[in-house]
């Protein structure tokens, strides 16, 4: 069997389901419902005593980590407290959306991660873009924020050019966020699909002498890449969130 890109690519793309919506759209809704249910449950269960085991303990560790290692170091506790809810939502939304693509058949029948879609990562980056600009404008004043984009002391004839460059810089940040998340999630899934392809191909077409070791090797690689993908899902959620925090902190800083 020859494994070609046309065998892999369609499985990475979104597709329309019979009832009108696409797989990625439905997965986004699943993630949203899951998150609301999970954190609503957590908010009812949390107490002043730290949870020692279970899902709640894991959630608490993750939430405290996002707060103390991601949000507060850049925004400070005072300002960070105002943005904490947004960044918790952002981090867990991306994390669950990433992990959703690794869930087995009954939980994710479409074998896709919503963050493997440019429209989804672009939409999330657009939200971050809006939050950055609104935070900056609220901090520095609605007009002053845009004027201050160009460093003071710039000659008047360079001002329009620098302003355009700064505007492009503003757009570049969410663009980088979009592409980084999309590429990492798609890349991981592509590797998994290639390995699955080997497994299917070897099983059907190779002789047992080659087939058995190849099957075992492919299976071992699939397991390894799947575990690795969980790590990538976490790292990408972290990178997206911390970069967003940094961009917001730069926007609200005195000299942005």
């Amino acid at each position, binding site marked *: 069997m020859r494994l070609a890109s046309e065998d892999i690519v369609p499985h990475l793309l979104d597709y329309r389901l019979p009832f009108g919506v696409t797989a990625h759209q439905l997965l*986004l809704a699943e993630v949203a419902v899951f*998150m609301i249910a999970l954190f609503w449950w957590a908010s009812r269960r*949390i107490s002043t005593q730290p949870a020692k085991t279970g899902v709640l303990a894991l959630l608490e560790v993750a939430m405290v980590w996002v707060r103390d290692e991601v949000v507060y170091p850049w925004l400070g506790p005072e300002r960070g407290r105002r943005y904490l*809810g947004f960044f918790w*939502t952002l981090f867990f*939304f991306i994390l669950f959306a990433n992990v959703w693509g690794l869930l087995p058949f009954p939980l994710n029948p479409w074998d896709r991660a919503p963050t493997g879609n440019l429209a989804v990562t672009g939409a*999330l980056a657009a939200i971050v873009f809006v939050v950055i600009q609104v935070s900056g404008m609220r901090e520095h004043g609605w007009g002053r924020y845009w004027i201050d984009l160009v460093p003071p002391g710039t000659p008047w004839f360079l001002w329009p050019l620098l302003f355009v460059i700064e505007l492009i810089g503003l757009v570049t940040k969410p663009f980088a966020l979009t592409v980084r998340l999309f590429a990492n999630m798609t890349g991981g899934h592509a590797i998994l699909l290639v390995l699955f392809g080997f497994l299917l191909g070897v099983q059907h077409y190779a002789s047992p002498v080659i087939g058995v070791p190849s099957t075992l090797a492919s299976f071992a690689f699939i397991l390894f890449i799947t575990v690795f993908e969980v790590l990538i899902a976490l790292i990408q959620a972290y990178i997206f969130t911390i970069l967003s925090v940094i961009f917001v902190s730069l926007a609200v800083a005195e000299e942005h």
Partner: protein
Amino acid sequence: MSGTLLAAASGGFTDLNLATMIWAWVSFGVTFFILSKVAWPMLARKMEERELRIAEGLKKAEEAEARARELAAKQEEIFEEARIQAQKFLAESRAMAENIKSEMINAAQQEIAELRERAKKEIALEQAKAVEDLKRATVELTLEATARLLKREVRDEDHVRLAREVVEEVALRL
């Protein structure tokens, strides 16, 4: 891999489906809105309360530790003072005992000396008495012996005096 993988994919990698973007915005927005109302404030508050409690516990523990350290220092000070006091008492007692001992020894020595002196005197007296008795006996014997030799009684004053003088001289020569 499920059979649904064979379903037709829509668009390509760079296809920015506006509907999907809107779904993402709505999903994220609704999640953020609902969680901001029902979960995040409670979770953040409980976590802060917990940290405050832990911080207070730590502070109390530190205070208790400082207090314990202070008490230990104070106790050590008291022990030191007691040790110094005990040493002082011991030294005083030792000195007092030494004094008593030396006084007792002195008294004993004095008593011994007195006893010895008294014994010496008594011995001297006894000795003198014995010598006197001996002298008298000697005189008596001498006179008795002389009387027997002379076949007459030698008892007058002169003879007694002479015998006594002889005995005295002999006693002095001894």
